[in-house]
């Protein structure tokens, strides 16, 4: 097995006196799509944010491509190959689509900006139609596409997606996951945090199930899809 691109070892994270993550260990290998599913408040987003040191892990290690990034500052991590599409999209409302995409190139400078923007427009044709429109005037789905495209503009080694299906119509969710599948086939390493377990598991090579700040189960996407417990808890049990 090749060395993982990102590895978490026995991570403990606290919000004041409350322990949000308990001895979480997981790894992501280059080129795979891994998802993390769980109920509200299980600690999924906390896990994603603690990779960036917000909140900082109390104990344990985060190893990214052989270096320990547990104590590194957020902007260092964000500008060294890990891109994130934050929860709730967080596009820059007063900037146009193109300007938002340009903001995504901050970590690497704009030398690839032209060709990458072109690539994003191929991946998300909707964005091309809207390229001179301000982000706040777009629909939720378009904003989500923009957030993902913006994260991709920094040519990341690892793409972290926090709930890309949040608040979107089922058909739009389907579109976004189709694009993510396309993206995964190009060899992008994707770490997906999702509540929509059905879509997430179908897309992923492997998945982790998180309950109350602990990893309860792990397996390939297919295994978990047919797993009785997962089906009852997250897939509506039918």
């Amino acid at each position, binding site marked *: 097995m090749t060395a993982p691109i990102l590895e978490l070892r026995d991570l403990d994270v606290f919000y004041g006196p409350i322990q949000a993550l308990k001895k979480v260990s997981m790894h992501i290998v280059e080129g795979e799509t891994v998802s993390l599913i769980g109920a509200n408040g299980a600690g999924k987003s906390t896990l994603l944010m603690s990779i*960036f040191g917000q909140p900082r892990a109390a104990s344990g290690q985060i190893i990214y491509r052989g270096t320990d990034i547990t104590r590194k*500052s*957020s*902007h*260092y*991590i*964000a*500008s*060294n190959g890990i*891109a*994130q*599409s*934050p929860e709730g999209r*967080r*596009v*820059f*409302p*007063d*900037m*146009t689509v*193109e*300007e938002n995409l*340009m*903001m*995504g190139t*901050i*970590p690497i400078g704009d030398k690839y*900006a*032209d*060709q990458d*923007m*072109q690539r994003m*427009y191929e991946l998300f044709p909707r964005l*091309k139609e809207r*390229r*001179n429109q*301000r982000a*706040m005037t777009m629909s939720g789905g378009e904003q989500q596409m923009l957030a993902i495209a*913006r*994260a991709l503009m*920094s040519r990341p080694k690892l793409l972290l997606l926090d709930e890309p299906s949040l608040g979107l119509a089922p058909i739009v969710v389907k579109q976004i996951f189709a694009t993510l599948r396309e993206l995964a086939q190009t060899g992008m390493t994707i770490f997906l945090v999702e509540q929509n377990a059905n879509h997430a598991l179908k897309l992923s090579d492997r998945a982790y199930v998180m309950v109350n700040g602990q990893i309860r189960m792990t397996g390939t996407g297919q295994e978990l899809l047919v797993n009785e417990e997962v089906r009852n808890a997250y897939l509506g049990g039918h």
Partner: protein
Amino acid sequence: MSAAKSSGIDIKRSLLETLVAGFLALIVFGPVVGVVLDGYSFNAEPRRVAWLVGGVMLGRFVLSLYLQSGVGQRMLQGFDSGGSGVHVLAPDYKSRLRWIIPALIVIAIVFPIFANKYLLTVVILGLIYVLLGLGLNIVVGLAGLLDLGYVAFYAIGAYGLALGYQYLGLGFWTVLPLAAIAAALAGCILGFPVLRMHGDYLAIVTLGFGEIIRLVLNNWLSFTGGPNGMPAPSPTLFGLEFGRRAKDGGVPFHEFFGIDYNPNLKFLFIYIVLFLVVLAVLYIKHRLTRMPVGRAWEALREDEIACRSMGLNHVLVKLSAFTLGASTAGLAGVFFATYQGFVNPSSFTFFESALILAIVVLGGMGSTVGVVIAAFVLTVAPELLRSFSEYRVLLFGVLMVLMMIWRPRGLIRISRSGVVPRKGVAP
């Protein structure tokens, strides 16, 4: 829809609006104007109230009729079309400013020939506020950090000149860069504790900072002279002084060139230097907004979390905004001190901060041109309306209310040119 409506003038509606306005005017003016204290008793003055209410009603009626006419309708629509947010221009947009800026520079060069001393001082004051507005515009308009203690940096610049002259014998030219640096440092010092704050909390802390500086200046009698203030030196040109007689063995400007003494020369010189500094600051600001750091400020204003997820160091972004804003105020302070020839703490009250903030808000958050216009409107207009000086604050209030109705985004909305279209991207 509105075009169809505007064909007929609705007199009934106008009369109704007039009555409502008259009623409101009665409530407002009745107690204020109608009751005049006379010793321990009072006299009712119904006639004065009647005149005022009548005036308001007549004005409202005329306004109502005018707004229903075709011209007025068009005017209303013009105000409404503003929309919200930043106006993103087409990438190849050629600004009309290309013509306006050279024209303004020519006017600025010709202006001193016709101006008398009074006009010159008014314009200098206007330019000082342009500097202050531009500096605060970086902090409030671009980075979105509400700073109510901005006047503190202005005070640091002004007192920098006065104290430097008093204790170290520094002149105008030495202090000019030093004051900018000192104010920038103060901006940094203020920036650190407020990094984690947003909105209201930030405003309160900065307000406190402004008051601390003023109170220190006011109470440290042995060092700053307290409320008595301190003298500040006049500027010099290569060691030539602009006074009638040179101090400390220097040579006065007029003697060196063998011309008659002219008391305006000092102000003329300040005007020229200040104008060049304003031009330089305008240019630097213009470039900054197009540089990554300018975009980073705007990103910070729009969404801090997204900004950080892009790998931007929000500490640096905030501190750079505070620092640059503060250093501009420091420059303005030096000019203020040398122009007045005297500084004391009463020039740096909260009202000044509010005035500078009003300039930024009136001009349009983040808009450079708007801030320049607003700075002149808010400093020159009170001078022109000297005889109404008691109503100055009232006029401010009226202006702000009108702004909220018609120009909620400021006189000139912030706009920036879009990204240049790239090869291979078909429209």
